[in-house]
C-alpha cells in the first residue's frame, strides 16, 4: 500500500524532501522495534512543532493512521505501524532548548536522546534521574510516552515524577502547552501526566519540560551473594526498614550468576544462588554509616560473599556482573525476550519463586533479574524461535506468568508498556470500567482513531 498521491504530495510540501520518506528502503527502516515489524506507507520527520501540527491536521482530515515514534527501542511493539499509514518520527527534533539552574528544570525537544539531556544537566551540576537501560539511545518523547523507569526507580521514581509540562500536538493539529515551569501546580487535571504512559494513543509529544535535582555528592556500591532469591529478597525489605533507600538494588538469580562466571571467568562464591547489587548515594559522610549498616544486614542474612567499591573503577567492576551478564545471555541464546512485571515489594520473593516453578513446568530456559527495591522483575526467556516446541513453550510461559502475576496482585507491565505484546491482557488487569474510561479519553483526544491504531481495542 502507499498513501494517495495527493496526500503524499501535500506531506512533501509540508516537510520538504528531507522530512518525507517513502522509498522502499526507508519504509523498511521504520517498520520495526525489537518485538514486531510492519511496514508503514510513508515516514514523516518533522523538524519543527509547526510541521508536526500540519502533518497531523492533514492525516486527521484524511483519516490516515499516525504512528508516533522516537528511536524505536520499545520492547512491546508499541511504535510499530501495524495498519500501515504514516510513521511520525521525532528524531530530527533533538535539541536541548534550555537548562535552568535557578528553576531547576530542562526544556528539550521530544527527539532528544535522554542521555544527552542527562549530560546537559550534569554540565550544570544537576541530574535528571530516570535512567532506563536504553537511555543512551531512546528519546525523551518515547520515555514520556512509555513512562520509562530504570534501576534507580525506588529512590528517584520514574519519568512521570519529573514531568512538569509538555507541548502536545493533537490529532486535529492543535498545539497545546500542558503544565508549566512551576514546581507545584494544582490547577486543573494533570494532563501532562495523563499523556505520560499513553504510548502514542492520544497525541504527538513535541517538547518536554522536566524537573532536575542536584547531583548527589558521592556513590557507594556493594555486591553481595546469598544462598537463594528468597534470602536476597528479604534483605531488600530489611535494608528499607533500616530507613535506608538505596538508589540501586539489582537482584540477579543463580542462573544469571553462573552465566557470568562461565562467560567472563568471574568467580562466584560457593553456594551463591542469588546476588544483590546495592548502591547508596548522597553526602559522603552519610554513606560510610549506611554502607556499614547494609553490610551488617547482609551478614545477618548469611551472605556467602560480599565486595564493595568506592572508586569509579571498582564500581565498574562490580557492575560488570550485572551488565556483562545480560550481554552474555543475549549472546548465548538465539533469542532472548525480556518480560516485565511488577509486584508489591513484599511479594517479590514469592513472584521470583513462581517464575522458577513456571519455567520448570513449561520446560523453558528462564533467567530472572529484578529492580528489587521497587518490585519490578524481568524474567528473561532464552529460546530458539522457529522450533515449534520451543515457540510453544515460550508462549505458554508468557501466558502462565502473566496470569500468575495478576493473581498475585501485581501489574503486567512495570516499565516496558503494553503495545502489542500485552494488549490482550490489559483488560484482565484493568476491568471493563477502566477500559471504558480509557477508550472514552482516546475518543476525546482522537475522535477518528488515527493515533497508533491496532494497539488498544477501541
Amino acid at each position, binding site marked *: 500500500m502507499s498513501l494517495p498521491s495527493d496526500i503524499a504530495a501535500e506531506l512533501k510540501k509540508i516537510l520538504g524532501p528531507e522530512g518525507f*520518506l517513502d*522509498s*522502499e*528502503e*526507508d519504509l*523498511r*527502516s*521504520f517498520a*520495526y*522495534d*525489537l518485538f514486531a515489524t510492519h511496514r508503514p506507507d510513508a515516514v514523516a*520527520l518533522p523538524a519543527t512543532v509547526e510541521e508536526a501540527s500540519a502533518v497531523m491536521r492533514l492525516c486527521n482530515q484524511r483519516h490516515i493512521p499516525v504512528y508516533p515514534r522516537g*528511536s*524505536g*527501542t520499545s520492547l512491546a511493539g508499541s511504535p510499530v505501524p501495524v495498519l500501515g499509514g504514516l510513521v511520525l*518520527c521525532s*528524531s*530530527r527534533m*533533538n535539541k536541548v532548548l534550555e537548562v535552568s539552574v535557578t528553576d531547576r528544570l530542562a526544556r528539550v525537544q521530544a*527527539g532528544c*536522546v535522554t*542521555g544527552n539531556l542527562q549530560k546537559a544537566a550534569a554540565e550544570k551540576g544537576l541530574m535528571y534521574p530516570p535512567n532506563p537501560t*536504553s537511555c*543512551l*539511545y*531512546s528519546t525523551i518523547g518515547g520515555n514520556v510516552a512509555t513512562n520509562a523507569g530504570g534501576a534507580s526507580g525506588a529512590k528517584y521514581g520514574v519519568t512521570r515524577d519529573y514531568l512538569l509540562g509538555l507541548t502536545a500536538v493533537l490529532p486535529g493539529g492543535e498545539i497545546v502547552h500542558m503544565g508549566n515551569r512551576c514546581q507545584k501546580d494544582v490547577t486543573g487535571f494533570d494532563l501532562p501526566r495523563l499523556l505520560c504512559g499513553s504510548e502514542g494513543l492520544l497525541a504527538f509529544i513535541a517538547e518536554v519540560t522536566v524537573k532536575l535535582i542536584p547531583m548527589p555528592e558521592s556513590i557507594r556500591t556493594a555486591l553481595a551473594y546469598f544462598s537463594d532469591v528468597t534470602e536476597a529478597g528479604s534483605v531488600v525489605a530489611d535494608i528499607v526498614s533500616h530507613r535506608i533507600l538505596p538508589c540501586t538494588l539489582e537482584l540477579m538469580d543463580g542462573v544469571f550468576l553462573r552465566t557470568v562466571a562461565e562467560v567472563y571467568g568471574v568467580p562466584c562464591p560457593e553456594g551463591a544462588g542469588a546476588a544483590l547489587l546495592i548502591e547508596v548515594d548522597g553526602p559522603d559522610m552519610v554513606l560510610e554509616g549506611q554502607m556499614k549498616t547494609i553490610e551488617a544486614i547482609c551478614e545477618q542474612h548469611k551472605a556467602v560473599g560480599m565486595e564493595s567499591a568506592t572508586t569509579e573503577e571498582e564500581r565498574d567492576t562490580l557492575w560488570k556482573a550485572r551488565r556483562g551478564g*545480560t*550481554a552474555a545471555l*543475549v*549472546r548465548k541464546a*538465539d*533469542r*532472548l525476550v525480556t518480560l516485565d512485571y511488577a509486584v508489591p515489594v513484599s511479594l517479590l520473593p514469592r513472584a521470583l519463586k513462581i517464575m522458577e516453578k513456571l519455567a520448570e513446568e513449561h520446560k523453558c530456559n528462564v533467567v530472572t533479574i529484578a529492580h528489587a527495591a521497587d518490585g519490578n522483575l524481568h524474567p528473561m526467556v532464552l529460546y530458539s524461535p522457529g522450533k515449534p516446541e520451543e515457540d510453544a513453550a515460550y508462549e505458554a510461559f508468557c501466558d502462565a506468568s502473566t496470569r500468575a502475576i495478576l493473581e498475585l496482585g501485581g501489574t503486567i507491565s512495570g516499565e516496558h508498556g503494553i503495545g502489542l505484546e500485552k494488549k490482550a491482557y490489559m483488560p484482565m488487569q484493568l476491568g471493563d470500567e477502566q477500559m471504558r474510561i480509557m477508550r472514552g479519553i482516546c475518543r476525546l483526544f482522537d475522535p477518528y482513531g488515527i493515533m497508533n491504531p491496532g494497539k488498544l481495542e477501541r
Partner: protein
Amino acid sequence: MKGPTCEYCGRCLSVCPSYKHHLVETFGPRARIDLARAVAAGELEPGLRYHDAIKSCLQCLACTEICGKGVDGAQIILDARLAEGDGRLTLKRRLEKFVTCTLLPRRELMRNMIRVCSFFQHVFPLDTRGSIRHLPDALCGAAGRRSMPDLAKKSLFDLLPERVMPPDNVTQVGEVALFTGCFGGLVNVEASLRLVNALSLRGYTVFILRAQSCCGAPAQLSGFKEAFEKAQAHNAEVFASCPDMPVLTLCATCHRTLSREYGAAGRELAGRIVDAAVFLQRHDERRGFIGALPENLPAAALLRLRERPVTAADPLVVAVHDPCHFRLDPHVGRAVRRELAARPWIRVVELKDPGTCCGGGGVSSLKNPDIADELGEARARAVVESGADIVTAQCPGCVLQLNNHLKRLKADARACHTLELLGK
C-alpha cells in the same frame, strides 16, 4: 549471512556518527544491517537509497564494538558494498575505480603522480575524494577547505635501502619487515624514518620491501572486490620473501585490513601483522628501554615539539586519539599510552569522549564532507580542552584531519603520528 542475527534493540544507534549526523534511521547501523540482509536474501530490490545507506557508513566499527549480541555490523555493511560490485559506472565511480584499482597498487606510478599532485587537486570532483581517504586525501587535499600535508620530496624507498641494518655498536636482536602503507611510504615519511631509526637503535634489521603495494583498503572500502583480492595476493607473495618475522604497520586502516580482512590468500601474512608502536612497547617493556631525558635529546628535535622548552619538570602534554580501526584491538591504545607515559618528558592526558571518530581515518568520510568537518572540529575542540601540546594517533588519516581542524581553530596544539614521538 554469517554471525549472530540482529535483534533490533537499537543500542548501536547511540554510537553511530553517521546516524547522529543524519538523524534518520535509514542511515544508522540497525537499518543498514537490516537492508543488507534483505538484499542478500532477495527480499529487497536495491535502489538508490540502499546505495546511499551502504555508502555513507564511515566504517568506524563503533556499531560492531557496542553490540551486545555480537553482530558485526561494520563487516556486514562492508560485505554489502563488495556485493554491489562496480555499481553503475558513472564518471565519479570510474575515477574512484581508477584511483583505487589502478593507481594505488602501482607505486612507481604513484610516486611520479605525487610530484604532479597539484594537478589532481583540480581533476578530482569533490565527491570522489570520499571513499579513498589516506593517500588520495593527500592527492586532492588542497581543494576546498582542506589543507595539504607536507609531501615528501623523496619517498621512503628513495631514502632507505631495502634492508636497514642496526649500527655496529648495537647487538642484533631480530628482524622485522615494514608495511609502509601508501602514506607512510610515499607522502609523509617522517614517521617511517623515526620508526626505522628506533628499530635500528634497538637492534633490529628492518626490511623495507620495494615491491609491496597498497594494502587494498581503498579498493575494498569502495566495493571493488577484484582489486582488493589482487592487492591481497600481491602483498602475500611479496612478504613471503621475508618469512617468519613480524610485519609492522604504521596505519590503523592498513592494520585492520591486513590483520582482519585478508582472506585465505593472505592468512599467513595476517598472522604476522603488528602495530609498530605496540611492537616498540613490547620490546621496551621486555628489555627495559627508557626514553632519554629531554636534556639529552638534540635541541632541534625538542624545539619542533612546542614553543616552550620541554623539561622533565614541565613535560610535553600528549593526548592520544584512538583511531576507529583499532576499536576491536583495545590493547593497542593501552600499549601506546604506557609507552608514551614511560618517557620522562611526556605527560599523557585523556581526551573527553574516548573512542569518538575524528572523521579522518578509515574511508568515506570525505564523501560526506559535512560529517567529516563536524567530527573533526569536535575532536579538535576536545584536544584544545584537554590542554595537550600534541595529539598523537597511529593513523595518517587521523593526524591529517586533526591538524587541519586544529589549524582552523587557530589552536597552539598540533597533531603528529605516534611514532614521531616514540622514535625520538
